[in-house]
């Protein structure tokens, strides 16, 4: 899964899609997921990184990541071929 490379993401969690003109806010967890995906990590690697870094079990995060990636797709924030 790849994030649309044209997105502008600020450190404070403000996200702008120049293709549509839409703006978003993300919470720190969401911003970290987007950052890792932009670095090219796979979903499995994101899960590994998160369970290492945050107080969350693998099942809970996997479920939340699935939900979050679904909403990224709904908002057209993934690369077109995704």
């Amino acid at each position: 899964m790849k994030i649309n490379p044209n997105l502008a993401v600020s450190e404070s969690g403000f996200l702008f899609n120049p293709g549509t003109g839409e703006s978003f806010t993300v919470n720190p967890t969401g911003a970290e997921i987007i950052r890792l995906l932009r670095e090219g990590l796979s979903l499995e690697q994101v899960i590994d990184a998160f369970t290492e870094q945050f107080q969350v079990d693998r099942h809970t995060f996997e479920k939340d990541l699935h939900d979050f990636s679904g909403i990224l797709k709904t908002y057209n924030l993934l690369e077109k071929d995704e």
Partner: protein
Amino acid sequence: MEKQKYERPHILRLETGMPGKFGMRNEPAPTTHIDGMAVSELAEKYGSPLFVLSEKTIRSVYRQAYKAFSTRYPKVQFAWSYKTNYLSAVCNIFHQEGSWAEVVSGFEYDKALANGVDPKKIIFNGPAKTREELLLATNNESLIHIDHLDELYLLIEVAEHADHRPRVAIRVNMDTGIYPMWDRFGFNYENGQAWDALNKIMHSGKLDLMGLHTHIGTFIMSANAYAVAATKLAELARLLQVKFNHKLKYIDLGGGFASKNTLKGSYLPGSDTNPSFNDYAEAISSALINSHFAPGELPMLILETGRALIDEAGYIISSVIANKRMSTGRRATIIDAGVNLLFTSFWYQHSITVAQGTSQYREDTSLYGPLCMNIDCIRDSINLPLLNPGDHLVIHQTGAYNLTQWMQFIHLRPKVVMIDEMGDAHIVRENEEMESITGLEKLPGHLSSIKA
């Protein structure tokens, strides 16, 4: 290295356009405690979902209401509306505060007697009283409010065999300028039915006409409607005095005062817009005092308000079962309290708060109950923090009607606890068990085995 605190990921699309009329978002603070008791501990000890009633709030709201009327009118009597909440613990708080009982069925009448209410202080309303119930109420010298002519004639028959003369009033329906006009109960004022019924009572010589009663509707947002009602009842009282030289003991304005809940579709919260007890008291007292009644001869004013007295004292503690996405990407959350417990969610936008601290992030959420039924929606749209399974929510102002109109549907009903004025919790109704339901069933012999 210690791991960082986790919050589930969240993204919100920013809507552009004109700012909202009210500018800032309205985000109520978490409800971590009810009357000093931790919500999480209540849920852990008594289960979830859980009804919680606050004795302190019941007494406080009752005293506010009584003060509003008694400082404006010399003779005020409240009668607790059993159908609004007939848990004995609730009824007895109102009775301790001085309320009579207002009942609308034989079941409620028996419940009031079992609670120890003086039968002479029971008002028996309702359109469906049986001969046996009328005889019992007559012999007990309770106040019987007649709903229709069939009941009037039946009561005249009952009087022949009773130990006492029936003490009666009639229920009057009328146009008070509000919509809808309730005309299915009682006798109409404008077309002369009410005056006709009063004449029949006076000419029968068998019944003691004690008062006049009306109940103009429910959740009445206009205090002035009560002024119209009081004026019309006062006019009937004047006619009785002129024609029969008969003085009434009381005028009963019924119930229907709005609580502080917010009706669905309302633009502003009910706490800001609904009339207060002072508004209702001012309208009613002024109308009666300005009517023909001579000073010192004002009839007792009886009030049967239920909803406005008990709504605020009720809470439901509920837990998040699951989060999901609808096809549109919209957030939906399933909780363990549905319309089976919260009948009033069909017409109220209940205030719902979280019971634990959260971050500043919110999402527009559809809140569904646990029933496998499409109608089970508690809030179509509510701005809530990022909830996780097991988190607790507190649903506010649930004290009226939910504990009498709740359904044993799909799920068994939970416990009800009351927190007393000292901050101690008491179970005032146990949760149902399988036996509560199947114990009433009878299985015919040929169906006792499922082997063909």
